[in-house]
């Protein structure tokens, strides 16, 4: 089987030739491997649609080959065909002490939207300011930038072939809390206070988001990627709550999974950190096919054997080795032992992808990633 076939078989809860192995190496491990300043990889000036950059996507695929792992390409998407008079964000890049500061400005007829993002040489980028600073005034401008539909997209993915058979092509749609966190200045606290103090106004915001997100899902599904991934980091129970998940995320996930399935495309949900309480909701109230990374403690609270026992007939399980402590500090032998335990716990009858929790850290020893691959190739044979 190719890596793509292997992963897709597992995603459909079937047995592949062996357990697929797909540690979440994005984006620091591949970036560090290049030896280049990270801002050089991310700010390459290319016209890339999706997360990161054209250069980084090549770096990711090179790294998949290097480790011999099954790839998970979450960097693509469909380019929007925008009206000719739609306001656009214009970037200027300044060199500052710690790296490159990207200043973005969007002139709308109601005033400017601005944001600043810092790109470091050896650390992940970080948005220092975000467009929606004054909730109600800036949301009006935001609507001018994003439009109120109908949204149009190109029919095909420009980078579909980059990952080829080395893995799955999985464009990302942010869940509402991710989308809002990315736009709203003031961090998670400000977002949550919006939900709490401006409940009625946030209904309007959510309504626009939902219309846009479903339009994008429809366009993605018609372009037939291997799957659509719903990016739900900000819905993690490490920061959010089951009540907000039900209110803001469930409507999208329920409708979007059906849209994907009508086109024969799988639906995949990412929720890192604490997520056990959400696994039950997703398995029982949506048609989502794959959920990951189902993190173990201390980052999360998922017992993968229990997840398999209770929800293995509903969901493909992808996970769940802790990244920020175990993958960084364990020996390869310890990693192998843990991988064998995970395979014993969750791989029976297929529907399991050996993976890590959210994003392996920059300094993760390569030997530990190679150890995961070795166990999948040997102990993980069906």
């Amino acid at each position: 089987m190719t890596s793509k076939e292997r992963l897709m078989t597992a995603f459909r809860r079937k047995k592949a030739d062996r357990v697929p192995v797909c540690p979440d190496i994005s984006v620091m491990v591949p970036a560090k491997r290049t030896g280049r300043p990270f801002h050089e990889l991310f700010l390459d000036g290319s016209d890339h649609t999706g997360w990161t950059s054209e250069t980084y996507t090549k770096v990711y695929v090179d790294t998949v080959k290097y480790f011999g792992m099954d790839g998970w390409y979450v960097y693509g998407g469909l380019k929007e065909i925008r009206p000719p008079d739609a306001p656009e964000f214009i970037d200027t890049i300044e060199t500052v002490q710690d790296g490159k500061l990207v200043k973005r400005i969007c002139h709308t007829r109601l005033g400017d939207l601005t944001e600043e993002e810092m790109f470091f040489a050896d650390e992940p980028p970080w948005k220092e300011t975000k467009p929606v600073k004054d909730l109600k005034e800036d949301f009006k401008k935001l609507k001018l930038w994003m439009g109120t539909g109908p949204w149009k997209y190109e029919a095909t993915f420009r980078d579909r072939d980059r990952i080829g058979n080395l893995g799955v092509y999985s464009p990302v749609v942010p869940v509402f809390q991710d989308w809002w966190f990315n736009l709203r200045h003031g961090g998670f606290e400000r977002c949550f206070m919006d939900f709490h103090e401006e409940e009625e106004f946030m209904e309007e915001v959510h309504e626009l988001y939902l219309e846009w997100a479903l339009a994008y899902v429809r366009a993605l599904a018609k372009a037939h990627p291997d799957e659509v991934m719903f990016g739900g980091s900000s819905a993690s129970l490490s920061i959010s709550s089951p009540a907000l998940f039900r209110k803001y995320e469930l409507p999208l996930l329920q409708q979007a999974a059906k849209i994907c399935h009508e086109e024969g495309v799988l639906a995949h949900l990412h929720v890192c950190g604490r997520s056990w309480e959400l696994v039950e909701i997703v398995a029982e109230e949506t048609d989502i096919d794959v959920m990951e990374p189902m993190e173990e403690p201390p980052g999360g609270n998922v017992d993968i054997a229990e997840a398999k026992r209770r929800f293995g007939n509903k969901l493909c399980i992808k996970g769940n080795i802790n990244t920020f402590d175990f993958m960084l500090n364990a020996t390869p032998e310890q990693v192998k032992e843990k991988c064998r335990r995970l395979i014993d716990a969750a791989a029976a009858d297929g529907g399991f992808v050996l993976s890590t929790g959210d994003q392996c850290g920059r300094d993760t020893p390569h030997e530990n990633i190679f150890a995961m691959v070795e166990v999948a190739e040997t102990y993980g044979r069906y």
Partner: protein
Amino acid sequence: MDRYAEIAQHVQNGYSEKARKAVEAALAEGCPAGRVLKEGLIAGMEVVAAKFKSGQMFLPEVLAVAGAMKAGMELVKPLLVAANHEPLGKVVLGTVRGDMHDIGKNLVAIMLQGAGFDVVDLGTDVRVEKFIEAIERENPDIIGMSALLTTTMVHMKTVIEVLKQRDLRTRVKVIVGGAPISKNFASEIGADGYARDAATAVDVVKDLLDNK
């Protein structure tokens, strides 16, 4: 339900306006500010801290509670200051250099304030010198450092080393926390305490002050 229990209930529910009005009414009826703080606001927050610690409450709900706590504190604080009411202790908090994540650190601040501590929040991306200046200016009992990134957690050790070099280490206790931090890491870098979550941070701070 007496006034104190009513305040505590509104805090637990995260009802800012109701908490503010109940505190206002209590003070107008002659309830001592110290009791309003302890038996009303702090009592409510203690229930919340316990529920958060056991996984029955989640961060967005705690933030709403913090709003209610703050609404009540705004009325009580000037009276406490006038009456020379002593806080349990003073804690300086900051997310270390290169790290912009602040939600965990902010939650620790909420929990500590809710437990009766005076908190000075230095924000995110806090360099060593800023911690040192804050220690000299604020004379805290404890400094707390937070990090979310494995690449920035190393700066905690740097801060502790500089504290030793400047003969400040004996003046303050140091606690650390954040997703990638472990008890072992805290010991290795010479911190006095480690808290795995915000509610535990209050217990750790209280223990350290008891043993100071």
